[in-house]
């Protein structure tokens, strides 16, 4: 059974903008799938359709074999946005515990899980800090810990490192791969960075603009686990080139980073 199954999904916004057209995509358990494309190709919209944050105009989405709505209500996925979206009035520990609180976990269970999650994202010792006392990269790690705290089968990430500098971004990429391996979750990752997509993914979905469609799906066969050396392999450059060319064929004219 696929974790995510998208069949014939289209989305038209009011005013006639076609954000998505005839999207078919299956994502299997344990995959790390990146959605890449120019601004306005609907990659964030597609992520939100999977999370039932936006309803598609046509087509069907199932998550864990259920309707997207049911999956959302069952807390089947965690989500991370470009901004960490932390609540400043809550400490780091209480931010991570928020979904557990809403799911009715007891205080002891919450506390134990929060410690576990802060270890996972290497923020032990920051439990009682407030978000504004942390750097952007650390805030995003809190956000990831929160998304994974209730052990969802699926992790949705919408350009989570887009606002970080290049150095921090590369470090966070490595962190994320480690977390992904440790948590054995399935990840759908929206990005507009080719290097990021190639480094992280097991599969890259290249999208084109106006209307938003899937123009190419590129499997990434780089060996796991990946590290700094991965970024210097010839195969890394071949794949990056393949993605870049697919983006250009899709009408993308910007020079990608």
């Amino acid at each position, binding site marked *: 059974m696929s974790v995510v199954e998208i069949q014939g999904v289209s989305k038209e916004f009011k005013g006639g903008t076609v954000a998505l057209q005839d999207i078919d995509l299956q994502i299997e358990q344990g995959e790390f799938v990146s959605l890449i494309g120019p601004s306005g190709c609907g990659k964030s919209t597609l992520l*939100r359709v999977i*999370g039932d*944050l936006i309803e598609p105009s046509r087509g069907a989405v199932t998550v864990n074999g259920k309707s997207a709505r049911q999956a*959302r*209500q069952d*807390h089947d*996925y*965690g*989500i991370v*946005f470009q*901004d960490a*979206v932390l*609540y*400043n*009035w*809550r400490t780091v520990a209480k931010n991570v515990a*928020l*979904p557990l609180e*809403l799911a009715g976990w007891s205080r002891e269970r919450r506390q134990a899980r929060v410690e576990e999650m802060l270890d996972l994202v290497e923020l032990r010792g920051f439990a009682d800090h*407030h978000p*504004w*006392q942390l750097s952007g990269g650390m805030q995003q790690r809190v956000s990831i810990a929160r998304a994974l705290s209730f052990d969802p089968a699926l992790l949705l990430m919408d350009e989570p490192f887009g606002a970080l500098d290049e150095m921090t971004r590369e470090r966070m990429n490595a962190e994320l791969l480690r977390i992904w391996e440790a948590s054995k979750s399935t990840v759908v990752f929206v990005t507009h960075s080719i290097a990021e997509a190639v480094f992280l993914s097991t599969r890259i979905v290249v999208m084109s603009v106006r209307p938003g469609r899937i123009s190419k799906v590129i499997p990434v066969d780089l060996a796991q686990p990946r590290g700094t050396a991965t970024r210097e392999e010839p195969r890394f450059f071949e794949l990056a080139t393949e993605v870049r060319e697919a983006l250009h064929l899709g009408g993308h004219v910007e020079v990608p980073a």
Partner: protein
Amino acid sequence: MTASIGRRSAEWLPALGVLVAMIGLWEGLVKALHVKRFLLPAPDAIWRAFASNQSLLWRAGWWTFQEAFGGFAIGCIAGILLAVVVARFDLLGHALMPYAIAANAVPIVAFAPITNAWFNPLDKSSKMAIAAVLCFFPVFVNVVRGLRSVKPQQLELMRSYAVGELTVFRLVRVPTALPYLFTALRVASVLAMIGAIVGEYYGGSLDSLGANIEQDASLFQFERAWAEIVIACIFGIGFYLAVAAAERFATRWQPRIETSGS
């Protein structure tokens, strides 16, 4: 987070120095230039008037403060309640907000003689009414803004948790609105005192500050009038500081940025 007493006093001392210097300068200039006492009495004369009328002054100040506080409570609670309703229903907001913002810019204190006519002018309720109306608009407008200033992604996150509107209100909207609310409450605490005193100028109990200031000024008892103004300042500043302290407590999670005044 909490500044040490030493650092605190280092911050306060210069301001205290300025106050002492100002009073000294005032005293010196009034004496040296033989300023007429109806233009500006010297600080030592005001102090004597203050010391010899203490019990009357504090009683009048307390009376006026009760009016201000009563109006503040009524106006702020009404403002908050209506704001919650308006922030929830967009249509109501579109219908009411332009008028609320316009009313916020109106010198409402001009209505003071009229609220005196609506209620018994000797009763505290007439001054509470004007103070309440003064407090209502800034609180209403700011709380609506605060409740609506929640970022869309925060709402998306809550939607991903599939929680109800009440939970979103409690967990996200209220904390987001708190700083906006307190900004308005600080303004309202000042407006409430102004409203009560100005209301008393147009006729009020002789137990109140405004009526006393008005009377003493017309009887050429300027030192007493100034002493009453000093009392008004003490109550006004105390009220403001109490609201500011409540704000610090309610939003103690916030980073403290050193600012002067609001």
